[in-house]
């Protein structure tokens, strides 16, 4: 919890490197990787939101894909209705995910452990099947975007710009999260994770504290979903499917549950590994599984726990 100057220094260096990345890739003619890097950052954002729920809030939610997908569909549906501006559609995506999380959270937060896992999964699958059965949402095929969202004065059609915007949003979310974790609310959340009985006995509104955490983490996923729709050029049902929730959870575990950079590191490691292994072998999933096993066995605090003592 002590402010570490070497930590901030490393963070700043990392941020500068991340900002410079598209320029380097362009210089080497590897423009394809700008899109890939954007994808990493988007998943990093979604996993960071999930890590807030799982790691800070102590609630193992297995339905994060629902909010991720809702964000994407919000952007796609609004675009079909003629609304292109990200200034409108992205906040709507966030609000829609938050609202869904408010309803789902209010209904499921009284359960815990395996029951909470199952009930969040069930709600997420319900949303998946509803969307797939809706004709105006594109059914099984998903909903293509006519173009990327407009974000005056920026031009998101440019891959590098979308990358930078994503990076900015990820950095802002990570900073906001740090701030939130150190606030009175964040401290209450820590207390809750360690001893719910005591928090209750101190008179804290335990359910509300959890609900806020669930909604905030899901809203972040909504934003990530809006970005992914832009990056993919469509909102697809697979984004809502339970396997997506599983993958996000794997990212969090891989990166470090409750570590501030856990979601980000996990997303980068998992997608990076898949990309690299996908080029070498057809059995990339097998090796990714091995890597996950190794982390669970030898680095229970995840990748973030390996290199530094964040938090």
């Amino acid at each position: 919890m002590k402010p570490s100057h070497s930590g901030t220094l490393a963070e700043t260096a990392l941020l500068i490197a991340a900002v410079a990345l598209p320029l380097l890739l362009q210089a080497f003619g590897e423009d394809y990787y700008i899109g890939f890097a954007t994808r990493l950052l988007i998943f990093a954002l979604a996993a960071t939101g999930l890590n807030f729920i799982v790691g800070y809030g102590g609630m193992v939610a297995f339905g994060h894909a629902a909010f991720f997908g809702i964000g994407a569909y919000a952007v796609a549906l609004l675009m079909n209705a003629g609304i292109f501006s990200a200034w409108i559609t992205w906040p709507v995506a966030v609000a829609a995910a938050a609202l869904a999380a408010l309803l789902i959270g209010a209904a499921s937060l009284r359960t815990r452990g395996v029951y909470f896992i199952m009930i969040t999964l069930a709600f997420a699958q319900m949303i998946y099947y509803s969307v797939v059965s809706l004709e105006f949402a594109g059914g099984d095929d998903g909903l293509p975007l006519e173009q990327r969202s407009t974000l005056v004065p920026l031009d998101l059609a440019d891959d590098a710009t979308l990358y930078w915007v994503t990076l900015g949003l990820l950095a802002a979310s990570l900073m906001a999260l740090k701030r939130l974790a150190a606030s009175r609310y964040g401290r209450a959340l820590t207390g809750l994770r360690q001893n719910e009985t005591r928090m209750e006995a101190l008179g804290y509104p335990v359910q509300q504290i959890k609900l806020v955490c669930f909604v905030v983490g899901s809203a972040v996923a909504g934003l990530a979903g809006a970005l992914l729709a832009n990056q993919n050029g469509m909102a697809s049902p697979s984004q809502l499917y339970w396997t997506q929730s599983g993958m996000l959870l794997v990212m969090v575990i891989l990166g470090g549950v409750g570590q501030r950079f856990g979601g980000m590191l996990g997303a980068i490691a998992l997608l990076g590994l898949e990309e690299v292994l996908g080029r070498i072998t057809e059995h990339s999933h097998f090796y990714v599984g091995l890597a996950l096993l190794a982390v669970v066995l030898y680095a229970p605090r995840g990748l973030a726990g390996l290199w530094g003592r964040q938090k």
Partner: protein
Amino acid sequence: MTALLEISGLKRHFGGLWATNGVDLDVVTGEVHALIGPNGAGKTTLIHLISGELLPDAGTLQFAGSDISQCTTHDRVARGITRSYQITQIFPRLSLLENVRLAVQSRQRDWGSSLRFWRPASADFRMIEEAEDWLSRVGLAAEVSQLACDVSHGERRALELAMALATRPRLLLLDEPMAGMGPEESEHMARLIASLKGEQTVLLVEHDMDIVFRLADRVSVLVSGRIIVSGTPDFVREHPAVRSAYLGDAL
């Protein structure tokens, strides 16, 4: 002498067992009221019923003049009832200071204020100072920065007392605060509770008769879910029903 807490006809069962079987009890403002009784008599169950962690099947609880029988724990703490547990309930991986700071913080019920989401908790010096004061009060001034899981059992019990006090309760419920302590630690805790006398209303569940008769202004004896005798320590000590039902098997 007005009753802060008035319990009448309180009942609660678990399956076929009436753990609380028609309890009538008054706790008067300012007193240390001891609740004694053999193992399984229903003392902890009664504390749960007062704190709101269990709801009664029958009977009423009046606190400071209003009926709280159906209120949530959250609401009861807001009204001024805080408890400690027979099995210590603290935040093991937080410092003693942060444990108590969270208790101080619990009094701030400004949920609408965005500051509590944005401003660092560590910037609130008043809260931290108050937490330090409570820790000194229970003799833990030197341990403020240690993790709660790293201090001794007796220190953890004292910490829990500090946390309960930091909520500034009108009624403090202590469920066997000396449970599992050695003689020295027990003595320290007994002195702490004695130091509260006159300024804090306490309902104290305790097994150790010497301590009970030393600390309590009044004593109630709970046997099989019922209060069989209630009165001054001397009265209770000499009461034949108590001697046979309870002291008999303690002696």
